[in-house]
């Protein structure tokens, strides 16, 4: 099977690493609705894997193709994130972990970075081991901050490179290409490390029939008819804030250093589109004065 551009074979070296992917499920951008209170109506919107996270997932899967090892997806969010975990499984992910707890509601990026890094530590990924790396998408369509990968890396005490387009592992180091203003940089980083993946990286592959059949036996429907893992499915772990031993003062709305104080609606820059031709443009421009 051909490997996507994001990752190159390196002499078929079998590394047996764990490629961890931070994955967020988001409302489909065009179908987002805002509630009367001005917050995002996440419950009713159809959801998908965040666009940039799809690139991270593909990067991890292509590295597994090249080097062997496992792809593990880690998320923080409500139980319905399992839908995206199942989608990821159908593409070849080996295991998924969901940190889900009402206490985490309202977490800003600082608190999210703390909670996700705590989850990674809890399931065994520490800076002491060098047989893993973690990646996330550049940013999410519903948060749009690009903060979380950096904040997870800081909490884990591991190096980071953001806006990564390509990655290969050579002689125990990750060799990555990073987008910068007006060009790119090649960097070499020790393992373990955090990469945030640029939207110009390879797109997510389609379903793998073998994987889809394998995951099917662990899936059932919830009360709302949505796909969910069967209880005790060995490929899925649901963790609470207490399971991960998170400090209560560092999570959720109260544990976050920032709050949304107000969110007034703004009128879109009202440009009054005039369709014209090159002769007509002269008249249109005169009207601007």
């Amino acid at each position, binding site marked *: 099977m051909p490997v996507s551009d994001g990752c190159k074979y390196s002499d078929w070296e079998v590394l047996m690493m764990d490629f961890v992917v931070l994955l967020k499920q988001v409302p489909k951008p065009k179908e987002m609705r805002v509630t009367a209170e001005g917050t995002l109506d996440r419950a009713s919107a159809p959801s998908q894997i965040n666009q940039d996270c799809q690139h991270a997932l593909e990067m991890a899967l292509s590295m597994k193709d090249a080097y062997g090892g496992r792809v593990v997806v880690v998320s923080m969010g409500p139980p319905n994130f399992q839908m995206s975990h199942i989608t990821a499984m159908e593409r070849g992910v080996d295991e998924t972990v969901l940190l889900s707890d009402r206490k985490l509601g309202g977490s800003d990026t600082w608190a999210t970075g703390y909670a996700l890094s705590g989850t990674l530590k809890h399931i065994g990924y520490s800076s002491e081991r060098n047989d893993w790396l973690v990646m996330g998408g550049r940013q999410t369509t519903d948060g749009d901050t690009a903060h979380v990968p950096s904040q997870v890396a800081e909490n884990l005490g591991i190096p980071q490179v953001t806006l990564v387009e390509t990655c290969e592992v050579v002689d125990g180091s990750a060799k990555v290409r990073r987008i910068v203003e007006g060009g790119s940089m090649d960097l070499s980083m020790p393992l373990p490390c955090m990469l945030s993946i640029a939207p110009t990286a390879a797109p997510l592959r389609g379903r793998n029939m073998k994987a889809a059949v394998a995951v099917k036996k662990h899936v059932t429907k919830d009360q709302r008819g949505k796909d969910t893992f069967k209880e005790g499915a060995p490929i899925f772990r649901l963790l609470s804030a207490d399971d991960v031993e998170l400090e209560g003062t560092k999570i959720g709305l109260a544990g*976050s250093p920032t*709050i949304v104080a107000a969110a007034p609606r703004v009128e879109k820059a009202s440009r009054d589109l005039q369709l014209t031709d090159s002769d007509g443009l002269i008249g249109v421009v005169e009207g601007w004065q």
Partner: protein
Amino acid sequence: MAMSDWPEDATVQRFSDATSSEGVMVFAEMVDGHLLNVGRELMGPGREMADHLGVTLSAVLIHHSVGDAPQDLISLGADKVIVVEDARLEHYTTLPYARALSDYLTNVHRPEILLMGATTTGRDLAPRVASRVDAGVTADCTKLSVGPFYHRKTKSVTTHMLEAHRPSFGESKLACIMSNPEQLWAPAMATARPGIFVAPASDSSRTGDVEAFTPDWQDGDFSVEVMDVRRGGGERVDLGHCKIVVAGGIPCGQTGFREIHDLVDALKAQGLDAEWGASRAAVDAGHAPSTRQIGQTGQSIRPPVYVAVAISGAPQHTAGMKDSERIVAVNTDESCTMVQSADAAIIGDYREVVPQLTEKVKSGFTFGL
């Protein structure tokens, strides 16, 4: 803001008192020995907020060699410039920059507000520093101000807080992000989009202090190595000062951007400050040097007139030009984002439309400029 209404028996505290912090600080990024424009721009809101708060404005430079940048920043309004110079800081990597900033904040002085440009560097560095020093950070702000916040739950008012405004929910709302009264930490951090704020006028007679700072470098701070850097060759093209910018998308590569060049040449011949630019896709395909790229990872500009030729308007591109005063789109697809968000659009093949415009310009048409 309506939030300034609070009951008379509410407790009132000032943010800087509650957090033992003082002053406004700007991280002014340098690339290849040059101060980036966004650092100059941030001296505008930085100075304004410092004056409003009655505190000093400082700037931080982290680079292998800062040259005249300290005096530049003082001329733009800095009272003090903190300089971290080290031969190993030629190219940005996260850990040494995070060490330099966080060491200063933790061991020397903690400002109440810390601003950075939302460049590829600032968006990488700000959250890392925020998690290290325990601070809140807001991304990609387009407006910065200072004000009070009344917290109903604790019946307390915190005054003189950073109000970091950023577009959200697909730009339909302008969210105002402030420090959480239950987790009050300094500095309140924000990154700001390049090209949004206007740099203050430079006054070379201004004086200020320059303070050298040596961080306590740790093992591992330099563990990430830069192997190669490719930034678009050729001259640095600053599109920010142009009156009119004509930008081409990837289809213009079919004819080597010839029509774009001809139009810009005609505009220049009319005495206009005109330049050409390109979308990232066109740059990646080799049709234009990256020094002319417009968008999120290129230049952010807002010229009086922007002519978008065969550019569909991906968010990464529009982030760098949507605040242009007037937008003229040339495209075959009437339904594309660029056309739908333009002031005027001509639907047609650029190979026909752009030469027609060039002829008009040659006969005296200057897009109203």
